[in-house]
């Protein structure tokens, strides 16, 4: 009764690019330009505002850390809400899914960091209180870095609920509401937990980046670790930077121990089958919660409420009745037409907004420049990916083939991967300044600094998944050296490696926006590329160039995904999967 295993990152099972991807791309591009246009007017009245610098005493750090964590938690709650509704909608309605899933796909490829400034201005214009608007923008930015991945995972789980479980639940007269909470959500819990962890790890990068933003003349600085380090950079305060890094490490350790370990451990309950080779994850926090009488007392009313929740009371029953009433065909047809009309209207609006941008605002003379800069960043991304591959594939295979080492190191690698690499950027900047290195070349490693871990822990997982008998057989056949790598190790890790490389490449593109321009005090280091193009446009509040930059980068990412990564991944999956 094996219902599937948990992939390390979201695996791509969706088939080829189709016309729905085009509609989705249009809608997102339309939304982007529309938001930009809406934000443009809002920028002026705020231009005079500048934030007072945060005090740098380390004693303030716990408070900042708490505020940063709070943003993360709120964004995670939002992402969860989004996941449960959006993915469910996409999975339940075939017609909606045809559009919703390509949209997710493209949203995943949009560089969020580039969009951050637009979001900030947009939220500032929506809310009268300045701080509140900026908070919303930061949370929104983190949300956008977390939600797509989670929604994708949940969607795929919903689609793969075993047919006989659905049949059993129908045979037992579950209401759709009850089926959702008692069958579909539990089935998705292991995958969802895993994707939450991945999303959370990625989110730290964005929370750091989103706390301190300057758009044109507007300087926004929310109290938190990200702003703290921004001030420290401006003041060239090395000690403060070190404090921030240490604080971040502690925060990560605590969230892991207090939140994710217990969650992961608890989610094992929902796995259909336990892998006897792998030791079950353990968590002292969960053990404590399970054994504590106090907690049991507190949890009891909640559990009762929960158990009552899925049982339809009369009102809910009526609602369900209303929702599931068999309508006459004419009614259905009319609803369909209405739906089509709304959809067409949205498409037209998107089309109009894109056309308006292209005709009136597009800096056409920049097109060539943007493409060239895109190629520069492309070269950087791939060079760094190759470098990370050369380093981490051997290391990962070595760790993964050694089961004891792997079980201790894997959680540590996951923890390290969550560390927001942008906290380390000033250290690199300082080195470049002091050693007078060429930023065009030496800023490149920053792209992969945070993303390299995806390669490592996927390779570890791949090496761990190698069947023991194959390892024994290859030893029995005296396979050694390159022959061993070629016949066993590389094919075995290939599907895992590509999953990791795809994620890492996406991360690197995104990171380029903050990594191609790094400052140390007044010194500004820049590497020419699409990332720095977007970054400069943001700083100058030049929205026309910003949109062009973001659209180009999304285009690059989508194109490379479609033409390179997906075929490679599919090939590896078909040829080298064990089963």
């Amino acid at each position, binding site marked *: 009764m094996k219902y599937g295993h948990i992939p390390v990152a979201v695996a791509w099972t969706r088939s080829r690019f189709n016309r729905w991807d085009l509609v989705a791309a249009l809608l997102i591009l339309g939304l982007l330009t529309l938001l930009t246009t809406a934000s443009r007017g809002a920028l002026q009245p705020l231009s005079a505002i500048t934030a007072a610098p945060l005090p740098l005493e380390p004693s303030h750090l716990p408070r900042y850390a708490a505020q940063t964590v709070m943003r993360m938690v709120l964004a995670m709650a939002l992402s969860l809400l989004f996941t449960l509704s959006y993915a469910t909608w996409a999975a339940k309605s075939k017609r909606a899914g045809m559009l919703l899933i390509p949209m997710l796909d493209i949203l995943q490829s949009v560089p969020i960091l580039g969009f951050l400034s637009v979001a900030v201005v947009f939220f500032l214009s929506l809310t009268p209180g300045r701080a509140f608007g900026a908070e919303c923008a930061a949370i929104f930015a983190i949300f956008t870095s977390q939600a797509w991945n989670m929604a994708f995972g949940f969607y795929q789980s919903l689609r793969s609920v075993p047919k006989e479980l659905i*049949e059993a639940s129908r045979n*037992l*007269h579950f209401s759709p509401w009850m089926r959702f909470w008692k069958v579909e959500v539990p089935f998705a819990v292991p995958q969802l937990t895993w994707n939450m962890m991945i999303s959370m790890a990625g989110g730290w990068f964005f929370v750091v980046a989103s706390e301190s933003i300057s758009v044109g003349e507007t300087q926004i600085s929310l109290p938190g670790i990200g702003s703290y380090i921004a001030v420290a950079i401006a003041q060239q305060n090395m000690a403060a930077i070190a404090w921030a890094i240490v604080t971040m490490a502690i925060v990560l350790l605590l969230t892991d121990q207090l939140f994710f370990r217990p969650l992961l451990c608890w989610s094992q309950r929902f796995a259909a089958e336990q892998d006897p080779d792998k030791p079950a994850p353990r968590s002292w926090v969960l053990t404590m919660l399970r054994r504590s009488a106090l907690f049991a007392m507190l949890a009891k009313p909640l559990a009762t409420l929960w158990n009552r929740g899925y049982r339809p009371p009369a009102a809910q029953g009526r609602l369900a009745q209303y929702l599931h009433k068999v309508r006459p065909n004419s009614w259905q047809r009319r609803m369909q037409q209405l739906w089509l009309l709304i959809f067409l209207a949205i498409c037209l609006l998107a089309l109009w907004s894109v056309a308006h941008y292209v005709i009136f605002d597009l800096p056409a003379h920049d097109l060539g420049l943007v493409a060239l800069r895109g190629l520069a960043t492309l070269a950087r991304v791939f060079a760094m990916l190759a470098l990370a591959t050369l380093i981490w594939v051997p290391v990962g295979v070595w760790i993964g083939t050694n089961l004891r080492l792997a079980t201790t190191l894997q959680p540590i690698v996951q923890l390290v991967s969550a560390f927001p690499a942008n906290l380390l950027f000033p250290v690199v900047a300082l080195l470049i300044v002091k050693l007078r290195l060429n930023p065009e070349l030496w800023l490149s490693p920053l792209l992969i600094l945070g993303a390299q871990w995806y390669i490592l822990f996927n390779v570890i997982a791949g090496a761990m998944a190698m069947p023991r008998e194959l390892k024994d057989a290859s030893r029995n056949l005296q396979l050694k050296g390159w022959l061993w790598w070629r016949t066993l190790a590389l094919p075995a890790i290939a599907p895992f490696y590509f999953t990791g490389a795809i994620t890492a490449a996406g991360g690197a593109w995104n990171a380029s926006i903050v990594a191609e321009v790094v400052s140390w005090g007044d010194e500004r280091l820049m590497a020419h590329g699409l990332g720095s193009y977007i970054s400069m446009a943001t700083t100058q509040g030049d929205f026309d160039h910003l949109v062009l930059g973001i659209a180009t980068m999304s285009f690059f990412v989508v194109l490379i995904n479609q033409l390179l990564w997906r075929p490679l991944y599919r090939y590896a999956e078909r040829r080298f999967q064990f089963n």
Partner: protein
Amino acid sequence: MHNPAIAHHIAQNTGPLLQMRDVRQSFPKPDGGELLVLDGVQLTVQEGEIIGLLGRSGSGKSTLLRLIAGLSMPTAGEITYLGTPVTGPAQGIAMVFQSFALFPWMTVIENVQIGLKALGLPEEEIRSRALGAIDMIGLDGFESAYPRELSGGMRQRVGFARALVVHPNILLMDEPFSALDVLTAETLRTDFIDLWSEGQMPIKAVILVTHNIEEAIFMCDRVLIFSSNPGRITSEIRIDMPHPRDRLDPVFAELVERTYVAMTVQAGRQRPTTGAGRSDHLPGAGIGIMLPQAEINDLAGLIEVLDSPLYDGRADLPILAHSLRMAVDDLFPLAETLQMLRLADIEGGDIQLTPAGREFAQAGVDDRKRIFHRHLLAYCPLAAHICRVLDQRSMHKAPITRFLNELEDHMSPEAARQTLHVVIGWGRYAEAFAYNGHDQYLSLENPS
């Protein structure tokens, strides 16, 4: 009537529990046509009987069970339960699944209770009824275990308890014992029949889908035999033996034999090749016939067993199946394939090797391939067709999709894939054509 508790019920009750009239089920095919799965099914279920639906995979018996359960709707015909049409999952019809279909995140007792919770019963009643069911089905002590901690047999007991606890009138069982090992399955069957004949279970009738003839004879009062493509009820066998039934009883063996004959007659009707018309082509046997799932090693093994001194070329199918520990689903495809390839004949529940079959049994590796090659191209139209097409092509190559599309005009995409898979296996063994799974091309072996 072997259930005294229900027997007196029936005295005062009228009308059948369930009635199916002219039920027909078909699915749309991609080319716009329709694929007929069930046709003209008539069935009346009375209180107190266990009905067996016996047939091979693809005969639509599981589809029929899902129609009764209200999990899907028939294309035509009428199903009534207690006089009212079935339009969705009906209360009073519970189901036991082949794969158990337990919720892995719920404990045994939670799994058993969940159906009662869905009905919104009061907490105390849920608890007492669940404990009662667990006690009856022999799961005491396992209440707080998770399904993954249990063996297959215990899991299926949970499946039974979960279905029985809602006190259904009709219990539907979809090959409930086929995922279990032989001994566990026998224990569960016996336990079930004991509870049934003692009238302990709160059910009035059972419908059991199976492909195991002995199981059907062991448990049922009536066995309905299904033909394949489309599924139709071809015959009915009544079993009036009292429970518990003894498999060694000559009456039991006689019933098994009769069932085998009924099933082979029906197979013969589909592909009428008896000893007489050896040289003429199979009537109506184009390329669009679904091929039986028979692996070449199994075919060779069966030929060798038949050729052995024990059988000397001829065997009684039930005896053969019994000694090989095989069920209908395992043995019939093999026997049918041998029949199709004229390596054996099937008649009245007996299988007999043809001279070519005996020659095959005696031959070495290369000669075996030669014989198989000859018979494959002569009697398997699809294999001959593939060779012809490949031969006509300039590069002697063709993508697999070319044949897949052709087959899908006659059968479901799934069946087409399986059929092609089977013929590729045979063709590879016979060295009639080669297949490259990487680029998915078929080609003539050594066209030079």
